């Protein structure tokens, strides 16, 4: 199997953990995996991306434009920013809740992500989730990275089994948060399955 998955968001949203779990789960299923992270200055509130490349045909550490099968966007503006990576028939799983940039308080542009969501709807096959809504039962948006991973898996487009992902969640999150994370994942999975129907 060859599959390219791009995860994007803003610094602090937990994209790196989602990327690690995805990569490890794919390896658990016997695939060859490469990935690359944004590290350095960009982490301080900036845009962040993780490129995950599954299969033997990947040479570049970064996914070439137009090559990603799945775009996992933790923020609608970032989804649009990284849309160039997505294949024409690829799927985008997008959080509709915007993260306003810090500069917004100094120079207000009125950015709230709604225009971006409308644009994405016109352009691509998308699955939308709102972190505000799906995270409400868990009392914190901290688990959104795992929930959106569940949504992508549930929608059947990630190409990695539910079991492998759950096993890696168990392995990679601190024991005291493992149960909540697994529940978050399953809640996301259900949302993804519904989106499929």
């Amino acid at each position, binding site marked *: 199997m060859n599959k390219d998955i791009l995860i994007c968001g803003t610094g602090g949203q937990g994209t790196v953990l989602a990327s690690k779990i995805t990569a490890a789960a794919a390896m658990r299923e016997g695939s060859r*995996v490469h990935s690359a992270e944004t590290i350095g200055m960009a982490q301080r509130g900036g845009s962040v991306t993780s490129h995950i490349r599954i299969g033997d045909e990947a040479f*570049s*550490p970064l996914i070439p434009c137009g090559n990603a099968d799945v775009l996992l966007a933790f923020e609608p503006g970032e989804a649009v920013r990284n849309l160039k990576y997505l294949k024409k028939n690829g799927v985008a799983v997008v959080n509709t809740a915007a993260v306003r940039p810090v500069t917004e308080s100094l120079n207000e542009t009125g950015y709230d992500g709604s225009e971006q969501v409308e644009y994405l709807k016109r*352009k691509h096959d998308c699955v939308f989730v709102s972190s505000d809504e799906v995270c409400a039962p868990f009392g914190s948006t901290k688990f959104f990275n795992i929930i959106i991973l569940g949504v992508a898996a549930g929608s059947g487009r990630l190409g990695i089994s539910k079991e492998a992902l759950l096993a890696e969640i168990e392995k990679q999150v601190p024991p005291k948060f493992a149960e909540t994370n697994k529940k978050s994942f399953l809640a996301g999975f259900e949302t993804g399955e519904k989106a499929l129907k």
Partner: protein
Amino acid sequence: MKEYVMGNGAIALGALAAGVNLVAGYPGTPSSEIIETVSKYPHEGVHLEWSVNEKAALEVAAAAAYSGARALVTMKQMGLNVASDPLMSAAYVGVKGGLVIVSADDPGPISSQTEQDTRRFADFCRIPVFDPSSPEEAYEMIQDAFEYSEKYSTPVLFRPTTRVCHAYASINVPEKFSPKEYEGFIKDSGRWVIFPRLSYINHGKIEKRNIETGKDFSSYRFNTVEGGETKKAVVTSGVSYAYVKECLKNRNDVKIIKISTAFPFPEDFVLDSLEGVEKALCVEELSPYIEEQILKTAGRHGLDIEVLGKLDGTVPHNGENSVELSAKILNEFLGENKKAEQSDISDSPALPARPPVLCAGCPHRASFYAVKQAMKGRKAFFCGDIGCYTLGNAMPLDMVDTCLCMGAGITMAQGLNHTNDGVCFAFAGDSTFFASGMTGVVNAVYNEADIVLCVLDNSTTAMTGHQPHPGTGRNMAGNFVEKVDIAKVLEGMGVKKILTVNPLNLEESVNAVKECADEKGVKAIIFKSPCIAIAKPSGRCAVDAQKCVNCKKCISETGCPALVAGGGKVTIDRNLCTGCGLCAQVCPVGAIGGEERE
């Protein structure tokens, strides 16, 4: 065992597999994780240190290599400038045990001041350089680098770039690492003491050796050629090889020649590979090093070959390469018109910019703000330096007038003082102070400069990922050690006025700055407050909506990302706020208060 690691991790594990005995370096993106990886794996018998700077690291390592031990030094490309003094000389003296200097280049640049090319530095020093194209290759190649270093008794450079350093791959590593057994230092002043006569003799030997090494590299396993007999060839190196390969995959109608050892240039290999080739396209990052070597080779051997690359404008000189850029250049080179299957997004709505900013609660913000307030209405110059606090240049703080290189703020403030009227400030972080700030302070005292040195002491090397330094009382061996006290260091160097303040106390800080501004000589203010990423926040602030008049002064003065405008009142993001209280001290109507964290 299989380990899924970053390229930097692969370099670290490769060095351990090669039996490295000593590892030293100074943090710098994209190289920092090499030493951190060594520290996370069992490394009994290996001396590991974050040195005070790159020059110190290389000198420590060189002596280990003189002793027959294997030594690894890590740094980013500009660190090599700092280490260039010992490196140039060590190249003449040579080594006994393997000495490998990793200098990670940063095309883009993504987090650096320069787009310099370590391969050119290797040529300048006349020592071999290895250039891996992937983490897997880096793991193997660093082991080869130690072998070649010992085979030719020379220091060797190892040059990964950001995309290799930060890419992850699975590496097969041994269960256990054993450091090399070595002889120890054997006195031989004719060999280890550099004198003009020795340099003269060794210079001749080195040039002869490099011809031999170049021939040796012609059969090196990572100098490869793919594709059949063709008239067109792409010559490439490092991560650019991965981009070219991604575009061409296993095509047979064009050759891909990969050069992993740019110096000494593997001329025989290149001549063989270019047999029958009429047109060669060089795809490399940073400088057109390989391109120049090919032109030189073609000239010397009278090859009838057209060479395309940076020099004729086919490939851009600046910035990093990518699959997209390579595809465009290859399309032109091969007379094709292949396009990626992507949707047209030229009509996408405007997107918010997300520039990097100082974190909410960062003590640097408070320090800069205090100096700014104290100097309001006065002529003053602010010399910045390298670290998170370079971000003090952003609006609304706008407190960095110059930034050049590590430690330069302290000395540049002196230059401004000698040639301008106005109060001259120098900002230096604690790690920068130890790395290359101290000599500048001595210079200021000795040469009678009137400057105010602001040491922004957050008890860590924050920008590169919170490495310890001499002021933290911890070292990379995991030991608690004597803290080097910055105030005492300054006192010892002859600074007469040294104030230590808490930057989160605005009034105290402003008064300290005012007190220092008008005095003659070198004055130092140590703004001491830990980085919010290492200290657990004790409280947070909240806006009293009854009192807030929505003047937004808190936002327009401090630019703290936890302050949110909109909805007629300012609010504070509870997840971001650390309770530093700067905004509360700025608020003209006393609408911001603090609360304990639960």
